């Protein structure tokens, strides 16, 4: 549906470098990156609001690299919405409809209703139609901006940080609605955000962008469990990242971490090279017990440690343990699990890590 090939675009001392990306029809694609990573620049390039230096952008099989924004068939919701404050809500939503060629305008109408009416109902802002933009709340503004973008029935919906300006409760509601709207209308959507939980809630697939480069694309679970680099692992809150020396031994990799901790990992596909590597242990993949566990499977690592800190976050309890003077590990327990075996600061515990849960990345 959307295919970006080797896009390069420099502005000031920042550049999008060799960006390639592919979004399937009907997919909800989230572009995750920190402030200044270039994610807004990439969305703007998709809109045709930047003349890119090199590369190709195609939408629906058509090369749109040199096509004006108004002919790309995109619905764009920019950061802070950019609603036209000199117009009413209805006029805002109608803005794009009036500008479509008259043949298209008929296509947009359903049951003889003007298209802005249909879309305002769908998004739930009909009751605001005659209001001015100034009095609207953040959530209402977001909905109106969405309605304005959807009113021209775009082939692709591009959302730039659509909920970042909202407070937490509104954010949850709007996210759920976005997902529902997108499922119902099957509109291919690219959603730019910097919030990890937001990404997990919405994304069919994700792209991680950093310093103008795409680091990894995949499903949320792929990114979460199998990040390709330490940089991506930091993005997805890996929890425990260790530097280690790797040595392959058959179907296993022996790891000696800085500080002396030894771990055994399963060989990844493709296998990581021997030598200096970064190791990720997700806090939820570490088992924690008060005694040496019985019947430990072969190659499972058992580590003795002292509990440093226990923080109750409600659904999860975050336990920080010291393996030795230099290495601390975070372990995440479900609330119910914790309630059955509560753990206190100062206790001695044993950690078990299966080789499949030790993820090795090149450094």
């Amino acid at each position, binding site marked *: 549906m959307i295919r970006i090939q080797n896009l390069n675009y420099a502005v000031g001392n920042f550049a999008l470098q060799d960006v390639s990306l592919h979004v399937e029809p009907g997919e909800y694609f989230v572009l995750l990156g920190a402030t200044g990573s270039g994610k807004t620049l990439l969305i703007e390039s998709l809109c045709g609001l930047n003349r890119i230096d090199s590369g190709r952008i195609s939408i629906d099989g058509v090369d749109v690299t040199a096509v004006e*924004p*108004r002919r790309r068939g995109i619905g764009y919701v920019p950061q802070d919405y*950019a609603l036209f404050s000199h117009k009413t809500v209805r006029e805002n939503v109608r803005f794009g409809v009036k*500008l*479509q060629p008259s043949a298209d305008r008929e296509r947009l109408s359903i049951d003889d209703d003007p298209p802005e009416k249909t879309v305002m109902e769908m998004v739930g802002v009909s009751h605001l139609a005659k209001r001015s933009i100034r009095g609207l709340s953040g959530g209402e503004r977001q909905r109106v901006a969405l309605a304005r*973008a959807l009113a021209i029935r775009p082939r692709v919906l591009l959302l730039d940080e659509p909920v970042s300006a909202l407070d937490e409760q509104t954010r949850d509601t709007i996210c759920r609605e976005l997902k529902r709207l997108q499922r119902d209308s099957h509109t291919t959507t690219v959603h730019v955000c910097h919030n990890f939980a937001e990404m997990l809630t919405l994304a069919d697939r994700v792209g991680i962008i950093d310093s103008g480069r795409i680091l990894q694309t995949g499903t949320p679970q792929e990114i979460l469990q199998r990040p390709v680099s330490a940089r991506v692992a930091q993005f997805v809150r890996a929890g425990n990242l260790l530097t280690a020396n790797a040595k392959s031994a058959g179907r296993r990799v022996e790891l000696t971490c800085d500080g002396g901790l030894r771990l055994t990992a399963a060989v990844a596909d493709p296998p990581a090279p021997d030598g200096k590597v970064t190791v990720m242990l997700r806090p939820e993949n570490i088992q924690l017990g008060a005694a040496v566990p019985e019947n430990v499977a072969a190659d499972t690592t058992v580590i003795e440690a002292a509990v440093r800190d226990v923080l109750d976050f409600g659904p999860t309890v975050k336990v920080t343990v010291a393996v030795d003077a230099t290495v601390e590990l975070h372990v995440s327990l479900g609330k119910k699990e914790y309630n059955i075996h509560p753990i206190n600061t100062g206790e001695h515990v044993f950690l078990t890590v299966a080789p499949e849960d030790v993820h090795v990345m090149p450094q």
Partner: protein
Amino acid sequence: MSHPLLSETRTASPVIGIRGRLFAASMLGFVALFVVGLVGLFAADISYLDADAFSRVLRSEDFRSAIWLSIWTTVVTTAIGLLFAIPMGYALSRYRFPGHALVDSIIDLPIILPPLVLGLSLLVFFFQTFVGRWIHSNVIEFALQPQGIVLCQFLVSASFGIRAIKLTFDGIDPRFEHVAMTLGCTRGGAFFRVALPMARRGIVVGGILIWTRAVGIYAPLQIFVGDVPGETAVLPTAIFLETSTGDIEVALAAALLMLAMATVALVIVRVVGLAQR
């Protein structure tokens, strides 16, 4: 947006001791001195006049023609000024081109330049340089003509409008036009449908600034178009002539009329400018 805690103009009032109070008093003392001095000056002058002086201004043939000349020339100047200031303000705000900073500075020059210098430059240009003389003979006469008044006023005042309107467009996020373009507008369509209506208050302010500056200039006009009563004498010229040769009360009355106009202009700029935020 309108929440008081987020407003930039919020001023805290910390708990302060005697020294803090003395400090505030001395800072505010300068404000009081300046404002009382300025208002006192005008108040004393007004007290010196009677209503008769104002009616003598309106009865004087020379003043009536000067007022009329001032009105129509400044209206034309303001119109031409805005015709330039709107596209120029927009272009300077939205487009970057080689030499942008230089061009931007050159446009500021008439703001900082003594108006007298511009009048003299025009005089020399149209009488002494080849290009100027050719224009004078073959295209249009400016010197000693009402159209010369407009030219002079335009050169001296247009930059005020350009500056104000550029700042207005600077304050309008280009995203508004970007969204309009994704919704079907051309670049020009986005300007006319979105940027221009959003800038309307800034344009009013720009127009008033051009008009106020245009109505007040005197030295360059005296040099470039002369001071013939009934022909090229605008209101400031008439006031000057009346001061040196005639009735100082009438001159003062006319000057206070200009003060009143300036006050009205200022109030409009303030009210419109505040509403813009």
